[in-house]
């Protein structure tokens, strides 16, 4: 266990209410032995300087609030061990999205893409009295898909999403698209594939795999995208 120590930070700061331009702030913080995660340090920093703005909520990696760029790589502050990071620790907002303030980005475009894949089960049969049946094997197809926390680490690490955030669905949205295609209760696989049949929406994925590298939940959007591409091929022949 790490003892009391001082940790140095370089943090991207920008408050449009008072700053003409963004700047990097050098700041350090004393940490106690019980501070393990980057979020612990950010909370301490905020106690020192209450103007530092970042999102956070559950502090256990399930809500997806505190995604940021940490020493050049996207991740969740609450799941990142401080002692695993080389100092000074450089914190920036997620790349590729407009910055609102400090480490807070405008996620409108990210959620617009998520919504564009119609993220809900569509089933035209009248609702039965009881649950729709699904075998354990069918349910297992959803593993590695439904656990997404919409933190945007993946999409904002993807060069294709940086270039075309308005046209390319991005890894998070495509993972969700496959989650509904893979669900035996959904009856609109064809429509879902039609919705992605476009030079940009799906096919801008060039399997760079940054998404897989950064996902804090260890999910694999590239694999899901590959499966959608396979289904499109199967449908074409």
């Amino acid at each position, binding site marked *: 266990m790490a003892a009391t120590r001082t940790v140095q930070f370089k943090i991207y700061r920008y408050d449009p209410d008072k700053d003409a331009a963004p700047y990097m702030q050098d700041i350090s913080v004393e940490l106690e032995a019980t501070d*393990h995660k980057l979020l612990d340090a950010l909370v301490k920093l905020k*106690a020192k300087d209450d*103007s530092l703005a970042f999102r956070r909520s559950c*502090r256990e990696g399930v*809500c997806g609030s505190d995604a940021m760029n940490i020493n050049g790589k996207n991740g969740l502050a609450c799941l990142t061990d401080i002692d695993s990071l080389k100092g000074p620790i450089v914190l920036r907002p997620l790349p590729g999205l407009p910055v*609102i303030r400090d480490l807070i980005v405008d*996620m409108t475009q990210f959620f617009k893409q998520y919504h564009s894949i119609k993220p809900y*089960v569509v089933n035209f049969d009248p609702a039965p009295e009881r*649950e729709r049946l699904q075998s354990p094997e069918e349910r297992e197809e959803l593993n590695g898909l439904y*656990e997404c926390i919409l933190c945007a680490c993946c999409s904002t690490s993807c060069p294709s999403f940086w270039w075309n955030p308005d046209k390319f669905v991005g890894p998070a949205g495509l993972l969700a698209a496959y989650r509904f295609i893979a669900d035996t209760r959904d009856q609109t696989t064809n429509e879902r594939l039609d919705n992605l049949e476009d030079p940009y929406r799906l096919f801008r994925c060039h399997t760079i795999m940054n998404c897989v590298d950064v996902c804090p939940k260890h999910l694999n959007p590239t694999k899901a995208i590959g499966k959608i591409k396979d289904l499109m091929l199967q449908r074409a022949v």
Partner: protein
Amino acid sequence: MKVAKRTFDAVIVGAGGAGMRAAIQLSESGLKTAVLSKVFPTRSHTVAAQGGVSASLGNSEPDHWHWHMYDTVKGSDWLGDQDAIEFMCKQAPQVVVELEHYGMPFDRLDNGKIYQRPFGGHMSNFGDKPVRRACAAADRTGHAMLHALYQRNVRANTQFFVEWMALDLLRAEDGRVLGVIAMEMETGDITVFQAKATLFATGGAGRIFASSTNAFINTGDGLGMAARAGIPLEDMEFWQFHPTGVAGAGVLITEGVRGEGGILRNSAGERFMERYAPNAKDLASRDVVSRAMVTEINEGRGCGPAKDHVLLDITHLDPNTIMTRLPGIREISIQFAGVDPIKAPIPVVPTCHYQMGGIPTNYLGEVVVHDQVVPGFYAAGECACASVHGANRLGTNSLLDLLVFGKSSGESMVDFIKSEPAAVQDIPQEQIDRALARVDRLDTQKDGANVHETRAAMQRTMQNHCGVFRFKDMLAQGVDKITEVEAAVRQTEIKDKSKVWNTARQEALELDNLIEVAKATMVSANARTESRGAHVRDDAPDTPQHPNGRDDENWLKHTLWYKEGSRLDYKPVKLKPLSVETIALKTRAY
């Protein structure tokens, strides 16, 4: 300050499970509905629920809603209202099936039905033996549920106001609720949301304690707003300490771990729950298990160098079970305890987890003061007190609570809105000014108290004076101390005056809400001179006349705390269910 105004049929504050379940009801009825949330909906704290949602589906073995009702009444130590409990347990199978139809990825049995696991206090045949009643999606049930509810709302085109913080409840002179006033985080702009019906689904306030499984956002905003608007808070002395928070970190480890066969052990390696609950053992009710753990630690049988925790052992389980049924727990243990539970036990301590009390409602989700309905005002989920959890909540009944009462409050709101005349009353200006004054004070306060330090002082006071075991003298001192902290809260000062995403301002406004909850808790706990459920005092011990220290003659009643003058009042427990016989008072044992 310029205040914009928007008008809706309904406004919902909070986009966790309860708020979003209600929103489905309203949006699908074609009503113009605004849902306000401090965070993007899928970041609400429902997301952190792990183990399951209870419903007597009987997928693995016979079960019945009446047995579920019995367990809930017993779990509540008879403080729960039996009409609301019957309603909830009877509705459970239907709301869980609806959730499945929305797309919830429940785990499955070989026959394709929803997988169910055992959980604390879930018994068949009126307390006979454990039954599988908790419907689960691995150990991520809350996450799966919250996303399914959000997705259904996307389909229903619900209008969300994301990253808006409600500041205060707006009431007419006759007490009717007219909506809320709220602030947009991104701009600092303030808007009045006027509506015929207003629902609070703002969650709990676990952050009043220093050690809590709760998220940073769980600051009791709905309770603070209700208290300031003259609504009493019910049964606030009852807080659930979850037996298994990760020692040091506070992060939750689901009771589902024990449901899958996990065992609590002391420093001697002993399965100590056999001594405290010979029948249910590790699956006794949460208050019982938490007290047993603290007793073990206090008597020197804690583990680790400081002997300050016990161990949750699943090393005897098939690693495959851990990987498939408890994958999230394994991740949390590795991340926050530094142990892989396949190889070594997890260090755990009781940690503040759930607020049984809240804004008083009936089972239709209507807010009631005594039996008087407050027109236009509804509450559901953890911020509400229906009361189904009484003095102690059963595991998995919280996710059920938000489905059942999210739905029933939504239905009540639809009926109310449709029966109301079109004209809406003007909002009295002084109601708006009251909220603006709190924001203005933060812009001008000088030489005030530091928000971080004041909040920490409140959390320490609650932790030390109002924990798992409570002491007469400590409670009395606690009331004085929390009143001192309250004075500091009235003078908090922030350095950041920016209009844009000012989280310092947000935290100061949240502290205004937390302190109301903390004070309500301490004052209510100090006054209740019996032991019941999660509220156990040294001066109300187990005696033949009062087994477990419970005093039904004097204390079988709900507490009501009013902010004005910190006044207490009481109301009777509803012992009469809707259709079945009363579940008669009994001494609680597991």
